[in-house]
């Protein structure tokens, strides 16, 4: 069995030489991922660690301080920089899935734990009679936690999505939309309310309002002071990221050259005595390199032309017969187009297998109303009338397939003059 790809991600234990480092694990986070990270680091069940924090928090609040301290100090687990260049390249090109992204967060545990914590805190406050300072503290901690949580989210998004420039807004909010703004807003409001409550405990309502106003003004002033600095920092970050993308691209090129060209050259050297194999290897490599260099779609056969080129490669690999594809128009491969692609594949395979021709020409023309494909070889040809009833390839895979989907297939062939298969698929106006 192969190692699951997610394991190669960043498990610090996978490298025996490196010192073990603790991380926060935002993927498993209820609040900041501290407990999850710590549990993994210590090899304990997450639940124990969480309960431990809760108990410490209730008994004198040291758990909260401990948690907050770890949240500030522990680095979040990184996701992008320790993959093989080939894997990372494939990921960026959309050829493989990214590491898991938790879209739907289950807020149940968070709410439950929060409620229990508040309840216990409330009981303690009632029992000890220290209500005055306690509630503002709880609110303030909640506000700070919300703000920090948002910082984590934004950071995670920047890692998962390395496209585009970073500006201040994106650095703070990420692409989180309403949830991100809500978190920021709620965090600030909770903090201000906490400050107001503290002052309310010591004096009258007017003083509390003044203190609240002062807190808001203080935050705004802080924003003005820190703003330019933050802006410069984010533009630095943006440049650094551009540099990183460039170096990633260089790594992609190196990886590709290694995977394809070097391997092929080695194979060619080994089979230098066999001209047919050498030619086939060279063609396969040419195709590969060409699609890599020139194909903006990254070889992803979601368009008609790319699908046909892929077929050409398959036929060449299977039978050593080059297939030249000329494509006019390039619609996406929809349900309507797929049958003709498959029929083309069968026709090209047939031509390569039976005709003995040195090459096969495929010409495809796609207009908004129909798709037409011609598959032509200059091989031995045959008499279409004399094809045995049990030859399924031609009848089932080409003619019947096209007819089932409302298209037509026409085969022109005479012994000695090669074969041309003409496939036509009308497209509805729906597309």
């Amino acid at each position, binding site marked *: 069995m192969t190692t699951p790809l997610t394991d190669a991600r960043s498990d610090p234990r996978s490298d025996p030489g490196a010192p073990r480092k603790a991380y926060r694990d935002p993927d498993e986070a209820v609040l900041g991922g501290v407990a999850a990270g710590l549990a993994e680091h210590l090899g304990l069940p997450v639940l124990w660690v969480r309960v431990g924090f809760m108990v410490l928090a209730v008994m004198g609040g040291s758990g909260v301080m401990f948690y907050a301290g770890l949240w500030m100090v522990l680095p979040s687990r990184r996701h992008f920089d320790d993959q093989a260049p080939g894997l990372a390249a494939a990921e960026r090109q959309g050829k493989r899935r990214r590491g898991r992204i938790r879209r739907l967060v289950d807020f149940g545990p968070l709410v439950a734990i929060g409620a229990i914590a508040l309840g216990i805190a409330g009981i303690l406050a009632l029992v000890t009679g220290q209500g005055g300072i306690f509630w503002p503290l709880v609110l303030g901690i909640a506000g700070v936690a919300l703000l920090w949580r948002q910082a984590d989210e934004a950071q995670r998004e920047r890692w998962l999505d390395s496209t585009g420039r970073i500006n201040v807004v994106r650095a703070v909010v990420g692409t989180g939309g309403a949830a991100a703004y809500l978190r920021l807003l709620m965090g600030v409001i909770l903090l201000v309310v906490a400050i107001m409550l503290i002052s309310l405990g010591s004096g009258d309502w007017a003083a509390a309002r003044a203190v609240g106003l002062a807190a808001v003004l203080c935050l705004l002033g802080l924003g003005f002071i820190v703003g330019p600095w933050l802006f410069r920092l984010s533009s630095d970050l943006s440049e650094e990221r551009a540099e990183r993308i460039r170096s990633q691209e260089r790594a992609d090129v190196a990886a590709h050259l290694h995977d394809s060209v070097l391997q092929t050259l080695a194979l060619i050297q080994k089979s230098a005595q066999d001209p047919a194999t050498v030619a086939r290897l060279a063609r396969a490599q040419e195709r590969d390199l060409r699609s890599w260099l*020139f194909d903006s779609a990254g070889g992803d056969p979601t368009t008609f032309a790319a699908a046909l080129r892929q077929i050409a490669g398959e036929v060449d690999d299977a039978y050593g017969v080059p297939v*030249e594809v000329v494509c006019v*128009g390039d619609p996406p491969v929809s349900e309507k187009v797929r049958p003709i692609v498959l029929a083309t594949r069968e026709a090209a395979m047939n031509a390569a297998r039976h005709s003995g021709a040195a090459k096969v020409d495929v010409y495809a023309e796609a207009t908004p109303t129909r798709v037409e494909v011609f598959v032509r070889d200059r091989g031995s040809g045959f008499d279409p009338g004399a094809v045995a009833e049990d030859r399924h390839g031609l009848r089932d895979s080409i003619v019947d397939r096209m007819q089932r989907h409302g298209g037509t297939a026409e085969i022109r062939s005479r012994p000695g003059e090669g074969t041309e298969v003409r496939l036509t698929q009308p497209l509805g106006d729906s597309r």
Partner: protein
Amino acid sequence: MTRHTVVIVDDHAMFRAGVRAELGDAVEVLAEAADVDEAVAAVVARQPEVVLLDVHLPGGGGADVIRRTHGKAPDTKFLALSVSDAAEDVIGTIRAGARGYVTKTITGAELVDAIDRVAAGDAVFSPRLAGFVLDAFAGTIEVAAVDEDLDRLTEREREVMRLIARGYSYKEVAAELFISIKTVETHMGSVLRKLQLSSRHELTRWASERRLL
């Protein structure tokens, strides 16, 4: 048939040697050149009948060679020979004045045939170039009424182009359409002229949109 005189322009010495070997005695290779300056000098000095011209060349590209020898080698025809499938480069070279385009994977016999045709003043369309042309002129039939003559293909020219794109030889095209080979050549010539002269705004837009193929 007389041996045609040829200059081979390509920046890869290995490729030039390969072409030379493939052509063998069928043509007389006057000179080789590896960049634009060398090519211009060689073409002007030797006055070959046909120049086998790489599309991508150090010093500006194949189109530059055609432009800079303009008027200095009146009887020289250019045949673009390229590994690049980038439509804009191929169309650009044709529009600069090349009489045809073939890919580097062409066989020796086919290349000799193409040289003969170009030397005789005909156009040479590989299936791929025919595909580019059809793509570039796509949709013009419907709006034929408003377009200039130069900016659209006639139905017949389209048919010829489609057959070429399907891999038919000139002879087969002629047989398929029940016309003479001479007529096929005339159609090809007029398509080439349209490709070179058309001011068709879509042609430029198409080439820039279809940056790569």
